[in-house]
């Protein structure tokens, strides 16, 4: 049986300080396509290898960060099951009407113990420009900028890491693929997967609730990561680190910032995860290698710079 229940990260809604600058960044540089602008000011974007209507939603606000992250589930019935299971682990579950985002069915929504809002939904309209399915070419349109294929995952920072991990594992059937642990046994970072990917969501312990570390987008291979780096320098995009590799998940990566200070990642690769795999763990004193495998030290920005 293929995937059931929660399928994948489906969308992320990001706050930006200036919509025009943000659109240049996300569309011209990362290579997302604008799908629609709605009356409330939100702009919906789509990546070239995604079947669904949109995956990134930008909202102009006076402080950057993440509003919410959405996961797509397999069936309508799953929404009812997950609602009950979320309530069973103590989450308050809200209902978001169909159409609150254009083309999206009803959602259930909860705020996890780390202060982040997550939505689950089963229905989203197909993109007007989906990947081809009949004698499918590798692309329907020419890639722009970095040519990101899809929105892939988020890394979030918050206080009650154990609480959020518990909700995703116990109520939503995620698995913990990889962790970083302090000498006293405290979990510092948790990498969670609902699929065959090394991670679909990552959480790092942090003293403030609800912080956003990055949204990540998939590239095809290491050479595309290098080309993304060329674009970052060519357009003076604020760089964080890379190209490098993560020890955790093994992704080949580059971190940079959007014009409002939200971190983005583009990456390629990473191992395949199966639910019978033993968990991988890193000791805190090896965290440099765990996060930045080639540098083998964290930069100060990794822990301290979030929106």
């Amino acid at each position: 049986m293929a995937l059931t229940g929660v399928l994948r990260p489906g969308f992320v809604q990001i706050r930006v300080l200036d919509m025009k600058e943000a659109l240049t960044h996300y569309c011209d540089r990362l290579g997302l396509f604008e799908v629609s602008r709605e009356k409330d000011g939100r702009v919906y974007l789509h990546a070239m290898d995604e079947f669904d209507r949109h995956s990134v939603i930008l909202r102009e606000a006076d402080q950057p960060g993440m509003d919410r992250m959405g996961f797509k589930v397999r069936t309508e019935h799953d929404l009812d099951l997950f609602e009950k299971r979320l309530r069973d682990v103590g989450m308050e579950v809200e209902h978001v009407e169909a159409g609150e985002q254009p083309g999206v069915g009803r959602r259930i929504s909860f705020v996890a113990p780390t202060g982040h809002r997550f939505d689950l939904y089963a229905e989203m309209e197909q993109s007007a420009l989906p990947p081809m399915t009949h004698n499918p070419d590798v692309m329907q349109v020419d890639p722009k900028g970095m040519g990101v294929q899809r929105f892939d995952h988020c890394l979030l920072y918050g206080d009650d890491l154990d609480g959020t991990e518990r909700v995703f594992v116990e109520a939503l059937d995620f698995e913990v693929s990889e962790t970083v642990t302090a000498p006293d046994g405290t979990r510092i970072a948790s990498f969670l997967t609902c699929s065959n990917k090394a991670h679909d969501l990552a959480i790092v312990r942090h003293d403030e609730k609800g912080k956003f570390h990055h949204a990540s987008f998939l590239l095809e291979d290491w050479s595309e990561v290098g080309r993304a780096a060329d674009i970052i320098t060519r357009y003076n995009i604020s760089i964080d680190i890379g190209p490098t590799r993560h020890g955790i998940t093994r992704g080949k990566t580059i971190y940079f910032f959007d014009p409002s200070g939200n971190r983005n990642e583009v990456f390629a690769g990473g191992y395949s995860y199966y639910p019978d795999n033993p968990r991988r763990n890193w000791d805190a004193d090896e965290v440099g290698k765990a996060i930045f495998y080639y540098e083998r030290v964290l930069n100060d920005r990794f822990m301290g710079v979030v929106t």
Partner: protein
Amino acid sequence: MSHRIRFEGLDEVFECRNNESVLVAMERLGLAVVPVGCRGGGCGVCKVRVLDGWYHTGKMSRAQVTEQEEREGYALACRLYPDGPLVLQAIGKLVRVT
């Protein structure tokens, strides 16, 4: 055209080009007076206070600089553009991880 930037209590003085933020000028010259974060007015680690001089700012996260603070001369160095020589005080901190 460039403007002279001085940090109170520090000997280091550097020049910031017109239309260049104080943080980017500092970084370009290889100086490390203020921590460098997102460079986009979002994370707050580059916070400074302008003690003297004329300047304007780009958009800054309200979570990092309140309206009140803005009136009192606080700014994010990555969104701070000098219109003349500036005297600054470093405020922002970055947790060290090593």
